[in-house]
């Protein structure tokens, strides 16, 4: 296989002065044209993982405490700020979870997109504005001409999200980090945006890290899936492996919580308990306090173990069937 575009090894993020990793030893590779979906409980470190790669962690108090992230062979985590800034919005772009945090409320949306295009492509102001208009149209903003001069607060939540998507895609990035890009959008626009992202990938071979909690979107978009829990990747595999052969108890719990479109149930299944506070995080497997399979062996941290080619799981009890047989015969 060709060289990966992005090779992340052992990425860890911490709050200054504490000892618990908010992102712990995260490793994965991404090839051009591939889509990696990241799923996991709210607060498990998905956004922090993406922000670390962009060099956009809120630091202080947060900082990267270990690992490397080779992008085109260069380590993003060690890169001088000016080089990183040159990459951002150009070779590498991010769609943020909360559009208002990355749109400038005082600037017209057309100007914001055009400014980024001009900065990275060095084209004329006129060409940049034309590109901004084209991008607004491509993300399905109705009457884009009249929205170029709108301020972010004049737009609906979903339109702001689309403006941000337009901005991120405007310079054809090689790596797109998309943090819940379609969560604020209705399903028809979502389908349109996802198709747009796939087109972009097909045209320019860009790679994408897509953070989403919509397992329907995962099934549709992902080549690979990383399931995170409390800062760690607990399961990693191809989309088919994750959906058709889920192994980690957390992955299975997550999938069971999903409301189905089929039969209506009286009550949704949940995963018992909450993610423990940093100070109460169990040693060993971080899911142990909520896991119905946990036993004494889980007090040691499970390593990622390959259960099939490209399918890795961090759980002592995997495969779960084996555990059942033992318990029954015991």
């Amino acid at each position, binding site marked *: 296989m060709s060289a990966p575009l992005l090779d992340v090894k052992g990425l860890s993020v911490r709050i200054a002065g504490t000892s618990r990793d908010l992102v712990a030893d995260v490793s994965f590779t991404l090839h051009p044209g591939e889509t990696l979906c990241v799923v996991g*409980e*709210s607060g498990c470190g998905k956004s922090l993982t993406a922000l670390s790669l962009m060099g956009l962690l809120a630091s202080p108090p947060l900082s990267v405490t270990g690992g490397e992230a080779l992008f085109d062979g260069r380590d993003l985590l060690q890169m001088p700020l000016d080089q990183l800034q040159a990459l951002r919005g150009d070779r590498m772009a991010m769609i943020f979870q909360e559009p208002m945090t990355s749109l400038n409320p005082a600037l017209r949306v057309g100007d914001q997109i055009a400014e980024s295009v001009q900065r990275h492509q060095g084209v004329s102001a006129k060409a940049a504005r034309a590109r901004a208009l084209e991008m607004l149209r491509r993300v399905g903003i109705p009457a884009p001409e009249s929205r170029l001069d709108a301020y972010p607060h004049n737009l609906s939540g979903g339109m702001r999200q689309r403006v941000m998507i337009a901005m991120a895609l405007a310079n054809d990035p090689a790596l797109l980090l998309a943090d819940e890009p379609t969560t604020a959008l209705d399903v028809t626009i979502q389908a349109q945006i996802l198709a747009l992202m796939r087109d972009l990938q097909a045209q320019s071979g860009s790679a994408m890290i897509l953070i989403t909690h919509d397992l*329907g979107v995962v099934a549709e978009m992902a080549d690979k899936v990383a399931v995170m829990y409390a800062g760690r990747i607990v399961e990693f595999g191809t989309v088919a492996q994750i959906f058709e052969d889920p192994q980690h108890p957390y992955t299975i719990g997550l999938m069971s919580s999903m409301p189905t479109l089929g039969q209506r149930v009286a009550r949704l299944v949940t995963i*018992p*308990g909450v993610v423990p506070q940093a100070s109460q995080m169990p040693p060993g497997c971080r899911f142990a306090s909520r896991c119905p399979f946990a036993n004494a062996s889980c007090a040691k941290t499970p390593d990622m173990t390959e259960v099939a080619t490209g399918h890795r799981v961090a759980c002592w009890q995997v495969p779960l069937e084996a555990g*059942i047989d033992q318990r029954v015969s015991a």
Partner: protein
Amino acid sequence: MSAPDYILEASALKRQFEVAKPLFGKAKVVRAVDGVDLKIARGETFAIVGESGCGKSTLARLLVRLMTPTDGAVIYEGRNIASIPEQEMRDLRRELQFIFQDPFSSLNPRMTVGALIEEPMRVHRIGTVAQRREKVAALLSRVGLSPQIADRYPHEFSGGQRQRVGIARALASGPKVLIGDEPVSALDVSIQAQVVNILEDLKQEFGLTLVVIAHDLAVVRHMADRVAVMYLGEIVELAPVDALFDAPRHPYTAALIAAIPVPQVGARKATAKLEGDPPNPIDLPTGCRFHPRCPHATDLCRTSKPTLRARDAGGQVACHYADELTLDGLSAGSDTRSDAANARFEIYRAARARSEGANAPATTTT
């Protein structure tokens, strides 16, 4: 069945925004909400769905007077809250609470989580300081957060955690109507399931009426009693949830259902994309507002505007051909799992049952 008891009603409700004022001529307006009539029954869960930008948030804000209408009335418990004095409205706010779409901009970053949740109780002079502190702790655990986080600030939390803070805050004043603008869309499915269960429990416990705007149609299908579908500022279909999903009568509703991403690898039949340009709310189409994108549109649709009229199952629909068209609803078995996955799920369920039995009395899980 006795006559339904309506707690909140909108009648001919309109809200416009000026978008661009040309040098000459009339200012251009967006008709964000353009003549909405609806009645929300006490104790029901009423969902509003529709295309991004169709006016859902605007409608929700009008319903609790976070915004005043350009025209029309909002009747809450017999009073037109669109026109009562601000002072009177202030007291009513305790009963009408709002959960915002964007938990980041709606929480004051300089207040601790505890202070944020306490604020509505303070404003409405509910309880003593000690009682309020206790209530804050209870509300935090209620939404699945640790009470120990009360002295931390919103920026220290993930998006989903902040959204739960917003929900705890909305619950603090003991509302009768809770309007959630995408209340669970920032949450992962396991927390979402918890929050949905919490909202349903609270609804039972306190006889709450819920109005929920959501893009996730699986959530809507699970939670709602009735659903209103909006398109370009208007309601195009309104029906009990099963009738709406199983047998939609409006082509836009059918398009929405067809676009639901199915959590199964390779499930999506090509791309079920709505054809045509997205609508322009400034320059509204003639006739049926959906006609430029509707696969069933005829000349009649291009010239004459369909009115909202009765459909079966006690619903309403605004389409000239509602009675003639056969539209696809949710297809049966639209999410079936592989055998291997099913076996794993079964093992998980059995293990859950075993471990909860063993640890009885089990700690409450939701």
